[in-house]
């Protein structure tokens, strides 16, 4: 069974599929431009001390996200 989790709750090596980006405006647009859209698979590569930033693998490339942005990404995790 899959569970709903925020991107910031995942540990390195864990992955999930995006179901929602709960932010708006410029930041939302930017995140979507970088490929963070519903359905995208995201894997956490590593997390900096204090959880900020978070490096993820998506669409074959690495992307670093601020904790305050990553927390708005909801994933479906198996």
């Amino acid at each position, binding site marked *: 069974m899959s569970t709903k989790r925020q991107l910031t709750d995942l540990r390195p090596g864990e992955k999930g599929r995006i179901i929602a980006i709960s932010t708006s405006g*410029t930041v939302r*647009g*930017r995140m979507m*431009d*970088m*490929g963070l859209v519903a359905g995208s698979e995201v894997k956490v590569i590593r997390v900096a001390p204090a959880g900020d930033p978070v490096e993820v693998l998506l*669409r*074959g*490339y690495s992307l670093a996200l601020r904790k305050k942005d990553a927390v708005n990404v909801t994933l479906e995790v198996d």
Partner: protein
Amino acid sequence: MIRAALIGNPNVGKTEIFNRLTGLSQRVGNFPGVTVEKKAGRMIHRGQEVEVVDLPGTYSLTAHALDELVARDYIVMERPDVIVDIVDGTNLERNLYLTLLLLEMDANLVVALNRWDMVAARGMKIDVEKLSELLGCPVVQTVAITGEGLEDLKNSIVEVAGQKNAKENRAVQNYGDDIEQLINRVEDVIQKSPAPVEKYPRRWLAIKMLEGDERVMEQTRASLSSPQLAEILSIIEAGEAAIR
């Protein structure tokens, strides 16, 4: 003289290709009013003089970031004869997003599939002919650091610049019936407006208006009558309500 502009994601080998195309003739210039640099140079190929402009590397073409805006304004306002989209062949999924945005802007496009040596080295296979067919524009394999494929790229630039119907087969992103309907309605309103708006690709304008792009709203305000503007705003509002 042919005017060509190079664009692509950051770190795809864009400037290396620029240097290969223009030799030692490049100089550094500034776009008026902003601090983001553009480089311009010249090349002569098959007896044709080509001005090559190196635009800032970007992932997208929104109005939010200065470098993206510089690239976008150049394409929309200066209307270069050819846009060369330098794509990292090892990362098509991310890179082709910009390619689709460029096609949406009605750009006369040539795609350079760069880092072609790495594509093979990583055991990846790309059906270049199929990609070209799907995008509706020429796709040329290149290796910027060795110069491989650069002659083919030069040939494509000169050929596409001379083709009036080069854009006929280009790919158009379909956003689904509900959004497409909104785009059509906004396009209809724009079509009835006086001349100045018409220098922008109409579909692109409609999409940007639906996105609430502040730059486009500002640029078109003078060209649209207030009833037209009100009609567009009501279409946007109704559309947003329907989608939510």
